[in-house]
Every structure is written in structure tokens, then in C-alpha cells.
């Protein structure tokens, strides 16, 4: 009887390892793909795959609500906006590895490798310590009710500030968009004005001041 329970527990453990390994591999591979595709459209698609496999890792960490929010907000809303802008602007980006190693590239790879080694050493030094003995959590850990209670009690200020940040970003997006439209109109008006210069004696044309 006990051996059956142990066997079932270890089978569950092995299955978790398999799922973790697949999700982690997908995460790292799609992350590398984001950086190395030369077409931004493919990069954005790879980032969607990255976000989806991250949601699997969140589920393994029993953060159900964050996993759902990740798929809805990130892989849904934010990435659709990204894909829309990429389709609007079109074109390809720089090929990351074309043209051989330059000083910039060598320095970039060195800096990325230094960050990786630093974090891995810091994590590895603590591997046998407190991090390897995770706390026991109840069934409600990470559930929407738990997150909502934390947001409305202990972290109310963060909740309110988040709403202000989102509002400011929305206003900023609208201002940038309208400003860009005016700049485009000015750029199109400026093209014919380059040809004959008007005589000096004429009274200057009243230009409405930009507000």
C-alpha cells in the first residue's frame, strides 16, 4: 500500500520534471529565436511562444492567476499590438550576425555572458540553502481570491499606483500618436516650400503658432 503511494508520488514527480524540462527548453529556445530572427514579425511570434511556455512554468509554481493573466494580457493584448505595429511598419530589421564580429558585438556578447555567469554563480551558491526547501503552501496559494485579497488589503497602494501608471501611459500613447500625425503633415508641407524662395519684400506669411 505504502509502496504504491510512493510509486505514484515519484511518477507525479517525474511527470513534473518532464513538463518543466519541455517548458524550460521552449522558453530558452524561443528567447534565443526572438533575438536572432532578422524579421521582427517572426521575433514577435517567437515571443508569443516564449510567453506561453512561461505560463506553463507559472502553473508549475502554482501561480494560476498570474499564468492566466500572462496569457490574456501579454500573449493576447500586448502582442497583438506589437504585431499590428510590425505589420504597419513592415520591412526587415538588421541581420544580427551579418558582417562579422565588430567591437560592439564582442562587447555585447561579453556583457550578456557576464550577466549570465554572475546570476548563475549567485543562484548556485545558494542552491543547497534555503531556496532548496520551499515552503508548504495551501491549495488557495496563487488563486484569484488570494491575489484579490492581497491587492485590496496589503498591497492597496501598488494597486492604485498601477491604475495611475496605466492611465498615464494611455494618455502618453494618444499624445504621441496625435503629435506624429501633425509632424507628418508638416513634413509633407515642407517639401514644395523648398523650391523657389519668395521675395524678401513680401510681408511674412502668418504662421499659426503651434500649441
Amino acid at each position, binding site marked *: 500500500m505504502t509502496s504504491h503511494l510512493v510509486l505514484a508520488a515519484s511518477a507525479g*514527480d517525474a511527470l*513534473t*520534471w518532464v513538463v518543466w524540462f519541455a517548458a524550460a527548453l521552449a522558453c*530558452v529556445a524561443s*528567447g534565443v529565436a*526572438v*533575438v536572432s530572427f532578422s524579421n*521582427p514579425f517572426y*521575433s514577435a511570434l517567437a515571443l508569443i511562444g516564449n*510567453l506561453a511556455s*512561461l505560463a506553463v512554468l507559472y502553473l*508549475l*509554481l502554482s*501561480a494560476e492567476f*498570474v499564468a492566466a*493573466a*500572462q496569457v490574456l*494580457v501579454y500573449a493576447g*493584448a*500586448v502582442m497583438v*499590438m*506589437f504585431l499590428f*505595429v*510590425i505589420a*504597419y*511598419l513592415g520591412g526587415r*530589421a*538588421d541581420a*544580427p550576425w551579418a558582417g562579422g564580429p565588430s567591437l*560592439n558585438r564582442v*562587447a*555585447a*556578447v561579453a556583457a*550578456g555572458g557576464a*550577466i*549570465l555567469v554572475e*546570476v*548563475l554563480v549567485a*543562484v548556485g551558491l*545558494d542552491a543547497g540553502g534555503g*531556496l*532548496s526547501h*520551499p*515552503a508548504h503552501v495551501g491549495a488557495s*496559494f*496563487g488563486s484569484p481570491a*488570494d*491575489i484579490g485579497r*492581497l491587492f485590496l488589503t*496589503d498591497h492597496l497602494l501598488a494597486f492604485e499606483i*498601477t491604475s495611475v*501608471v*496605466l492611465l498615464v501611459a494611455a494618455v502618453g*500613447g494618444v499624445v*504621441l*500618436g496625435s503629435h*506624429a500625425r501633425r*509632424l*507628418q503633415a508638416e*513634413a509633407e508641407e515642407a517639401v514644395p516650400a523648398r523650391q523657389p524662395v519668395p521675395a524678401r519684400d513680401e510681408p511674412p506669411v502668418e504662421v499659426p503658432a503651434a500649441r
Partner: protein
Amino acid sequence: MRGPDVVWYLGVAAVMFSTGALGVLLRRSPLIVLLSLELMLNAANLALIAFSRGHGGGAGQIFALSVMAVAASEVVVGLGLIVAMARRKLALDVDKLTSLRG
């Protein structure tokens, strides 16, 4: 906790973060720089949620949700800037935007 320790998740987060940092430093298209920034933010989110699970408190998940909101705002402003650049017919190349360089 079944399966891998928190440390393994932190390793994945470290690899993802350095990949994103490499992309920010290496690529010249502002769109891909923004995508690499998202990669870095998500690596930080993964570390936060792993720590939250390790300590058994919900504060890390609250922090991760706030980071998501900040990332969404960052995308709105960043994409607005890129569209404004494209409408002014500026080259979409971060190495050529040097007017603020002293």
C-alpha cells in the same frame, strides 16, 4: 513541491534575462529592442514568482502583476515612439538616432 527546485527556475530566468540583454545590446531595430526588453521583464517575473513559491508568500505574485502593468505601459509608449519615428521618415535604427548625444 513536486519536480524541480526553485533554483532551477532561477537558472531559466537567468538564461532568459541574459538573452534579452544580449538582444538589447546587439540589435539595432527598435522593434526588436522592445521585444528583447519584454524578454528581460518576463525573466524577472519568472524569478519573482519562483521566489514567491519558495517563500510561500503572495507578495512576489503581486509584484509580478505590477511588472506586467508597467510592461504594458512601456510597450504603449515605446510603440508610440516607433510609429512617430516612422512617420517622420526617420530610419528605424537605434544607432542612427544620435541627436541627443552630447
